[in-house]
């Protein structure tokens, strides 16, 4: 049972909200209605632990997250300023101890996110009533807890969570097979068509020629061979027909799950799909929100007294670090860069092919297309296509970007390159599938024993073996038969297996 956190916003904040919203709309931002709630620290950490939702199903990992958030906050190691969830209406949470200038910034930032949620194509398939859906999930799982016991449900959820990222985030945008016709194809044939099709491989000949043209013993043999080949094919037949990336869906369709297990796995999968676009658009989404909070704050929001706090907070958010790129910073700067380029006409063949530095430096066709361009980009791109299309060599140089790689010998990450092509490639690699391995179901009838065979598509980075083994253990709990994953170990193809009691790793 969750406690209602609803309390009326103080009038100052209400005024700020109304003002920010009006400015946001005037700039063309198009948001769902946005409901702000003011939370204290404990509530904020609780909501954050639950991924922003007031009600989630019971599980210890939310407790773990809560503990860590509360501690890091109290020790001043990290601060959560704001949280917003993709829902219609959008819900956003403010921390009651933040200064007024921070609240303003956060509200402006939130409107950027809300516009992004509503308009970006990658969010178009997400459930906009997720608040209700999450509560519904919680109710269903609580019911199973009552029926089969807390331990059993919790243990099963642990196993599912181990596999939660094995989905295909693109599948919601693709129709891989035509809609299934409500009438089975076979029903369109007449009853005796089957027999005819199966048995009569030849056209009947005239009566007296029949035994010569279609000798019965040959027909008999052919029929037997056909039958054998059929059986053989059936025996060897592997499914799925082609590698399937949505491992969770495959398990839902084929794993021997009890009804409550089936439902819980489908809940985990639903939630994974709901959260997937946030991972796919982290740079864009944060960049867009930062772009708008800077625009709204510097042009409208700030009073003179707030400028310094704002500058301090803002610079803290967009600080750079050698170990990773800051999505806020890169996203914000890329949007600014694009706006500038499309305003001045620094794009297209003419600009790209211009070799004269001075001409390029002064390039300004006064097109003024920047604003329109970034609105278009926020609609159709995700991080991978965004970086692929708009990251330029000049940008990399200006922002001192580099790629780094792990050095086996020194056991250190080292700067690998400052070449644009390599930086971009590395960045795209780390963004693709959130930098996680691609895993496919290849064969669910491995060795003709109903064993599950997965494959890891090699991208030059090896799997962590201990984690792979433990994940297989959890997978086996769902599949009930031995499970395998094919991967690369020390540059050689290998298979890691778990049969329910033992792990085994062998070269393929």
């Amino acid at each position, binding site marked *: *049972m*969750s406690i209602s956190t609803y309390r009326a916003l103080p009038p100052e904040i209400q005024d700020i909200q109304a003002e920010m919203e009006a400015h946001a709309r005037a700039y063309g931002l198009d948001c769902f209605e946005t409901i702000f709630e003011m939370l204290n620290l404990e509530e904020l950490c609780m909501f*954050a*632990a*639950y*991924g922003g939702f007031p009600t989630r199903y019971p*599980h210890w*990992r*939310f*407790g*773990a997250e*809560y503990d*860590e958030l509360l*501690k890091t906050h109290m*020790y*001043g*190691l990290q601060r959560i*300023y*704001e*949280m917003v*969830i*993709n829902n219609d209406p959008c819900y956003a949470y403010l921390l009651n101890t933040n200064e007024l200038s921070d609240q303003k910034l*956060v509200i402006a930032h939130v409107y950027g996110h809300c516009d992004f949620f509503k308009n970006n194509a990658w969010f178009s398939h997400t459930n906009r009533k997720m608040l209700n859906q999450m509560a519904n999930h919680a109710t269903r799982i609580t019911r199973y807890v009552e029926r089969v016991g807390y*331990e059993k449900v919790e243990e099963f959820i*642990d196993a599912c969570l*181990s*596999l939660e990222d094995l989905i295909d985030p693109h599948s919601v945008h693709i129709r891989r097979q035509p809609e299934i016709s409500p009438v089975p194809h076979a029903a369109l044939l007449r009853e005796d068509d089957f027999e005819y099709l199966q048995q009569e491989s030849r056209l009947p000949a005239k009566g007296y020629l029949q035994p010569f043209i279609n000798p019965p013993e040959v027909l008999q043999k052919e029929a037997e061979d056909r039958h054998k080949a059929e059986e053989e094919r059936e025996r060897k037949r592997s499914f799925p027909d082609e590698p399937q990336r949505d491992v969770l869906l495959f398990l839902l369709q084929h794993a021997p799950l009890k009804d409550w297990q089936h439902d819980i796995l489908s809940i985990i999968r639903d939630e994974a799909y709901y*959260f*997937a676009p*946030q*991972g796919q658009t982290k740079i864009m*989404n944060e960049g867009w929100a930062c772009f708008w909070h800077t625009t709204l704050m510097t042009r409208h929001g700030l009073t003179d007294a707030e400028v310094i706090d704002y500058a301090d907070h803002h610079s*803290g*958010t967009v600080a*750079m*670090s*050698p170990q990773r790129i800051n*999505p806020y910073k890169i996203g914000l700067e890329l949007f600014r860069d694009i706006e500038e380029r499309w305003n001045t006409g620094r794009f297209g063949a003419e600009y790209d092919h211009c070799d004269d530095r001075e001409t390029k430096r002064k390039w300004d066709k006064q097109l003024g297309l920047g604003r329109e361009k970034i609105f278009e980009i926020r609609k159709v791109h995700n991080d991978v296509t965004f970086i692929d299309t708009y990251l330029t060599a000049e940008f990399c140089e200006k922002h*001192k970007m*580099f*790629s780094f*790689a*792990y050095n086996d010998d020194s056991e*250190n*990450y*080292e*700067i690998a390159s400052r070449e644009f092509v390599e*930086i971009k490639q*590395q960045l795209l690699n*780390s*963004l693709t599938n*959130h*930098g*996680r*391995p691609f895993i496919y179901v290849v064969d669910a009838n491995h060795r003709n024993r109903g064993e599950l065979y997965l494959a890891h598509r090699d991208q030059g*980075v090896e*799997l962590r*073996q201990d*984690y*792979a083994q433990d994940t297989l253990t959890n997978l086996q709990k769902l599949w009930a038969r031995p499970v395998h994953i094919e991967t690369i170990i020390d540059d050689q193809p290998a298979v890691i297996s778990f049969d329910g009691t033992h792990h085994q790793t062998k070269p393929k």
Partner: protein
Amino acid sequence: MTRSIDRDSQRFKEIVRGKVRQGLKKYITHSEMLGRKGREVVSIPVPSIDIPHFRHGKKGSGGVGQGEGEVGQPIGKGQDEGDGQGQAGDEAGRHVREAELTLEELAQMLGEELHLPRIQPKGDENLRTIRTRYNSISPTGPKSLRHFKRTYKRALRRMIASDEYDPRKPIIIPTREDERFRSWTDESLPEANAAILYIMDVSGSMTDEQKAIVRTEAFWIDTWLQSQYDGLQRRYIVHDAVAHEVDEDTFYRTRESGGTRISSAYVKAQQIIERDFPVAQWNIYIFQFSDGDNWGEDNSNCMKLLQDPLIPSANLFCYGQVESPYGSGDYLKELKKIQGKWDNLILSEIKDRDGIYESIRTFLGKGK
């Protein structure tokens, strides 16, 4: 009314304490919470539980970063999970900001967390010492101490007053007269000096994990004692069959093999105290860490040295036994025999990283 998060949080704690779901014990990880001491990152042990996933290992991994540096320059060991970037959230958008901590704040956190009492130092009240505190503002000073906000405010005020400020182009340029700097005042305080002697067994049976535990614990002890004393001195002794005085860096890195003779370290400690820290004027703390392995015939010698002169000259003599797969752990039993006689002899067993906090509390909880 209970909140649902309390139920989940409770459940998590039960799992960490090993009361339920033994299967998850192996995924419990520590020191995920990072604080910063200047440029160095220190870890604060906080338990969390990993859920295993198919993940990339370090081999062949990499990412993209920003900043200065040549190709080939190391940028860190990275965390266990080697996917530099790409941790991107499968969670609601939220805005997180890291903060830096001063040592003083760290010590305060520790004190509060462990309910440590403030130390009542012994020492000569007549000796006085000067303590410098940065608690004022001055119109002069080095650039590194420039108070940005004050400077900026003065510049802004000046520009508004002189009608140079244009809100449509809010550019503020501070002049020399606007600049303000952090400055210090001197406080005169009664002097209380303290010395810490760290003794660590580096024989073959102490593994890297054991030494990491010692390092973490020593860091926190240092931090706490430093917040309690102005003039804190440290000395480091490592020993296997023989003892050496070493510098801090060596203390944490040395690895020897071979047997163990604890008495050699005690003799060395005694020499250092006589040489550097007259007992009448110094608060002396001795922290010894070992896996409890010692040559049997050496034990009686150790007890003798401990009871005269080591324990009597120290505020605290703390022995921390770090559990090791190789050590016998017998030394603790020897110490327990004489524990009753000395109230400043404190013993603690440190099973794993989780045990560090409890051990610190045991050592420093008396306020001596």
